[in-house]
């Protein structure tokens, strides 16, 4: 038995992996299998492309999710899948690494894209190395070919009416010596700049602390969180250290980054490079940020921002 397996500890990532897995399964004329927490999820995954769903056993309260590894390894030994895609959440990364070791196979961590060689039945997988400076293309020489895939790498699969699939229950794992004593959910109200959809970033082009109000009104118009470059937090201390972006600070990947008076040193750019769209406002047309931006507005931020807010309000009202 072969197959393409997808596994993640959360629904969204399973759906993303199902769309990636579907293309591989079609290319290799194989079937697609997913892992679900319950029957309802199993049904959804089948609708979204799974031909088979393994139902994960319910774990005792004091067992960590990762104690499922022996169950996954046993299932893989039974069915010899060709490919296993794992959602690269924190738990997924551990599970992937241990599973690859247990199955004596290779694992491509942080796979950001792949190319299927249907003849050789191999995946050429891309991953970032050297802190994002390089892209390494690897092929797993063992079976199964395993990869962990970061969230949002693929679009989620969409449900299709009338799809059918098998549901297969997995047995409970042996008890893990790692016991959960407590779980503390994350505080949702504290601002986490790395989660923001839109980030407005303040640089040294801002002349005084009071002018942050101007930036705040822009952020409000955009529905953005405010971040800053290193000196604004470290030296001027206008904003807390938790929001400075860069190689030594926070790394963000919002859908829109707006740099306000940010010159764009490499160290800063490294922290924002994964943004979907980068926009910059700077008086200096030679500022390096413009080379790293999709949209650059050359002008004095004190004149540009009020106009920008006006245009935004008008455009968004329409």
């Amino acid at each position, binding site marked *: 038995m072969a197959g393409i397996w997808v596994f993640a500890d959360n629904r969204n990532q399973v759906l993303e992996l199902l769309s990636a897995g579907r293309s591989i399964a079609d290319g290799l004329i194989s079937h697609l299998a997913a892992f679900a927490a319950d029957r309802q999820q199993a049904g959804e995954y089948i609708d979204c492309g799974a031909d088979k769903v393994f139902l994960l056993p319910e774990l005792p309260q004091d067992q960590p999710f990762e104690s499922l590894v022996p169950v996954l390894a046993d299932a893989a030994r039974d069915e010899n899948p060709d490919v296993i895609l794992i959602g690269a959440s924190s738990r997924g990364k551990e599970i992937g690494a241990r599973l690859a070791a247990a199955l004596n196979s290779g694992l491509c961590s942080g796979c950001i894209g792949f190319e299927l060689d249907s003849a050789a039945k191999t995946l050429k997988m891309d991953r970032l190395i050297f802190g994002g400076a390089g892209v390494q293309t690897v092929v797993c020489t063992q079976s199964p070919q395993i990869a962990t895939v970061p969230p949002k790498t693929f679009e989620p699969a969409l449900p299709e009416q009338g799809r059918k699939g098998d549901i297969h229950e997995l047995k409970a794992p042996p008890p893990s010596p790692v016991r959960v004593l407590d779980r503390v959910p994350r505080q949702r109200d504290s601002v986490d700049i790395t989660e923001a959809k839109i980030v407005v970033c303040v640089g040294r082009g801002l002349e*005084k602390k009071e002018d942050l109000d101007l930036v705040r009104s822009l952020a409000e118009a955009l529905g953005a969180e405010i971040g800053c470059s290193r000196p604004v937090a470290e030296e001027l201390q206008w904003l807390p250290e938790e929001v400075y972006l860069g190689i030594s600070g926070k790394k963000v990947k919002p859908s829109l980054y707006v740099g306000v008076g940010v*010159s764009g*040193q*490499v160290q800063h750019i490294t922290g924002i490079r994964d943004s979907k769209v980068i926009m910059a406002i700077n008086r200096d047309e*030679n500022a390096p940020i413009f080379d790293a931006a999709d949209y650059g507005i050359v002008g004095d931020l004190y004149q540009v921002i009020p106009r920008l807010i006006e245009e935004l309000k008008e455009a968004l009202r329409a």
Partner: protein
Amino acid sequence: MKRLTVEQLLGIDKFVVDDEEAHIVLDKEVCRGCAAKPCTFACPAGLYTVKAGEISFDHAGCLECGTCRLVCPYSARAISWRYPRGGFGVLYRYG
């Protein structure tokens, strides 16, 4: 060849920035009374700038030459200067 700004030049260099301890600390009170502010011209890294009439300085990017404390008319009082802690600061790949 493209002209480079001093920020771009410093961006090429390698720094291990000491976020805990600044090796150069200014007494901005003294700087306020300094009209000439020669540091803003002499610093090869251009780290001394005037913002809203006040001197602004960031120790990240310092090339550790020592020019600032020699050109400062109020040196002893305005600039507390020492080398960064061991292992921190600028690291030349060529030199």
